[in-house]
């Protein structure tokens, strides 16, 4: 699958920014899961997921987020989302996940919210 890329950038000692590009489905979700797991394993519980280049998300991608949110919040962190494309936002909105995840227009706002929490 050439159509998926994931990159993580560490931002300070407690924060990770995860960039997800392409198509996030049941095939690529394990790689998203891995990236989140890695952040948590290194005690980075402040996680910003930048969906700027994400064209597509299915419930498999949402399942990955749901699988970590409780643990992350219990550890005092959060998973926040930034730069959602309209079609990705629609899926979050449709399911009411906009009440569950804080969604920001850009990285700066998302980081501010994440670190002031």
């Amino acid at each position, binding site marked *: *699958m050439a*159509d998926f890329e994931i990159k993580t950038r560490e931002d300070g000692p407690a924060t990770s920014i995860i960039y997800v590009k392409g*198509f996030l*489905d*049941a*095939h690529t979700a394990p790689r998203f899961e891995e990236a989140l797991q890695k952040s948590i394993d290194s005690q980075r519980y402040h996680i910003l997921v930048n969906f700027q280049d994400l064209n*597509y998300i*299915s*419930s*498999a991608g*949402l*399942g990955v987020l*749901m*699988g970590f*949110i*409780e643990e992350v919040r219990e550890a005092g962190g959060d998973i926040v989302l930034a730069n959602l494309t*309209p*079609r990705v936002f*629609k*899926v979050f909105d*449709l*399911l*009411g*996940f906009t*009440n*569950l995840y804080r969604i920001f227009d850009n990285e700066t706002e998302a980081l501010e919210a994440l670190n002031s929490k």
Partner: protein
Amino acid sequence: METTNLPESEIHLKVPSETTYLDLIRMSVTKVAEDAGFSPEEVNDIAIAVDEACTNVIKHAYNQQTNQNIDVVLKVDYQKLTIIIVDRGQSFDPNAVPLPNMDQYIEELRVGGLGIYLMKTLMDEVDYEIEPGVQNRVKMVKYFMDDGKLKSVEH
């Protein structure tokens, strides 16, 4: 090799039961839905619904066995796109699967269980036809004009 003829505007795609083929399936569905005249947003909705149905086949009907296969049939007529997905794996009772209550879902931070909900939310009709030991079939329909009246008559 199958020798039956297709009625006009019917497309069959048969792929192995592996998640790596989800994007080929989405691409084919996207192309057919675009050509049929659906808007980009509707096309994405249809692609998600088909993806969810095929993901369920791989995960549940075939229990991740990759040496099986999935049939996807796409039919376009003057009023709708019909998509039929067939597997020959484990059957299930779709009526015994409750749709999630999303408020509760979010409150309890549940995981999974969103596929069928998305299919039903994104498509106009979703019908399962299970023949245990033979095949499982889910038929999904999207109308060109999302006309509530027409839909309520049909149900």
